[in-house]
């Protein structure tokens, strides 16, 4: 089920219509007007970038880095090859927004990437698509064909001297490839192992060339910004948090799905949109930004608004906008055990603290969950975590530690009870 409210990306889309993804339908919704205007008015590259900067758009892939600023880092006049790359390797548990962009509005992404290519002086782009969504990959290829036939991609776009082509690359099952430098390695046909940074992709990216990587939703927001103006986008959200954002709501709600709402909307309103708590159960906890974001108790969440600043103030992160809602029947030790397993499975293994540390975290949490926890296990989790966070090549290690720290902080009594009494405080039910 997909529900969109007041969207920028999903404005005017009837997602139940079979053909809503097609070029014709996109054009009827005002699509490709932004690109046309840029090309016909010969808009200067720096003006396109300034517009994106002024919109307050922050990267939708997790880190929230200002998109316009990132674009300005690209050496635009570098004479050799340069690339724009889209990250549709959506695999952060709880996140399912980019799949809906590919399914229902792929041309918004294509147009956004062409505009990015224009602004940064690149001739080629790639969209890296998560392995598990093969049907969306095929549909995206079909959308690319449409765009090529209509003259939006290829040589001399719309009769100008700007040429740009775009290709889809299909992943095959590795969460780590969502990390941007692992993604580049994978795009080069290698194991998806993150690179040391610096150098950053803007100077040494795909095939060693300057490269800009953005999330699907970031690129797909760009046509609106150019067409309707930075101010309008900014106004749709709140200061420093421009625009609307897609929130993927999962877990114990009546209507899981994607909700595109202004940044700054109260969490309570979003929860209501998602149909409220399933079976009228009590809200216990929420992970507000994908599995890597610290968990927050339900009552804290009810005081938050859905934007980068409010969620950060409450001690978590907006991340990818994946809102995982849990009711009172969930044993927090069981929930954390499942996440710890995931990070252990998905560590690429090149840094010892991550490879060994994620294994230890899972092992200790698993034994606590089994009623075999030992006194001192919570301190052990702490010290393993301290030896991982900030000591590795990429942020997966931190992503594995954040949930452990926050679960054991906010729900410490459940962990202590299980260690002491060998049985859970909460009679656990997944659903």
């Amino acid at each position, binding site marked *: 089920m997909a529900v969109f409210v007041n969207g920028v990306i999903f404005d005017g889309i009837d997602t139940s219509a079979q053909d809503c993804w097609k070029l014709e339908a996109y054009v009827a919704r005002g699509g490709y007007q932004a690109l046309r205007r840029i090309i016909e008015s010969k808009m200067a590259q720096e003006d396109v970038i300034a517009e994106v900067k002024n919109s307050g758009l922050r990267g939708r892939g997790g880190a929230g880095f200002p998109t316009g600023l990132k674009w300005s880092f690209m050496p635009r006049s570098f004479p050799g090859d340069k690339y724009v790359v889209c990250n549709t390797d959506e695999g952060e548990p709880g996140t399912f927004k980019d799949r809906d962009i590919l399914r229902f509005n792929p041309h918004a992404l294509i147009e956004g990437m062409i505009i990015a290519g224009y602004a940064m002086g690149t001739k080629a782009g790639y969209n890296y698509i998560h392995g*598990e969504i093969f049907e969306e990959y095929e549909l995206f290829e079909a959308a690319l064909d449409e765009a090529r036939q209509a003259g939006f991609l290829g040589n001399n776009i719309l009769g100008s001297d700007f040429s740009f082509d775009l290709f889809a*690359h299909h992943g*095959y099952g590795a969460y780590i490839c969502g990390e941007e430098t692992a993604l580049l390695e994978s795009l*080069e046909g290698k*194991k998806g192992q993150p690179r040391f940074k610096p150098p950053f992709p803007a100077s040494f990216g795909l*095939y060693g060339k300057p490269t800009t990587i953005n999330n699907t939703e970031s690129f797909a927001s760009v046509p609106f910004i150019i067409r309707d103006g930075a101010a309008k986008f900014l106004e749709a959200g709140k200061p420093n948090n421009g625009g609307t954002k897609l929130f993927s709501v999962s877990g114990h709600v009546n209507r899981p799905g994607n909700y595109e709402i202004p940044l700054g909307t109260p969490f309570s309103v979003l929860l209501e949109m998602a149909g409220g708590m399933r079976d009228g159960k009590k809200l216990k906890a929420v992970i507000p930004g994908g599995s890597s974001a610290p968990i927050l108790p339900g009552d804290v969440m009810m005081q938050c608004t859905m934007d980068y600043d409010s969620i950060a103030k409450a001690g978590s992160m907006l991340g990818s906008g994946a809102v995982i809602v849990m009711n009172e029947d969930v044993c927090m030790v069981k929930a954390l055990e499942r996440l710890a397993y995931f990070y252990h499975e998905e560590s690429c293994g090149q840094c010892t603290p991550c490879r060994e540390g994620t294994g230890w975290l899972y092992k200790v949490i698993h034994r606590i969950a089994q009623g075999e926890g030992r006194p001192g296990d919570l301190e052990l989790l702490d010290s393993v975590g301290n030896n991982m966070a900030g000591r590795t090549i990429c942020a997966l290690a931190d992503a594995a530690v954040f949930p452990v720290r926050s679960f054991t902080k906010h729900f410490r009594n459940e962990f202590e009870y299980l260690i002491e009494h060998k049985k859970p405080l909460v009679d656990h039910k997944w659903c």
Partner: protein
Amino acid sequence: MLSAQSLAAIDREVAKYPADQKRSAVMGALRIALVERREAGKTPEERCLNTEVIEFVANYLQIPPVAAYEVATFYNMYDMKPVGQYKITVCTNLPCALSGGVNAAEYISKKLGIAIGETSADGKYTLLEGECMGACGDAPVLLVNNHKMCSFMTPEAIDKKLAELN
């Protein structure tokens, strides 16, 4: 070793990348090879990738065989072990678990009489547990043979799907 159709599909992958970067096509090429083996294979052993086909793909792309082998073993959707005619991968990660993902895996396991990670004796089904597929809003979700995603897999929907595969 691969059909003309598969080779043409690999050529289309190669064309996406700069002429001196054929290696980029290895992921697509291995996927195409796997699909052909799955469709043509009569036994679980014949349906997965093996060293011969990986080497063939490497030679076709003019890259060292070890480079292709590394890729085939790093990404977990490439079947490197014998696999049933229908590989069913159920997402049991936390968001899905909260909407029936674990129950779905258990239900299928009971129904097929195989544990997670096993292949049925007749070589028809393999049941696996998977990580987030980026479709948590449709939970429970499962993948059939890597490429077909099935959403909202309640016990009734699972019954229907299995009957269809049968």
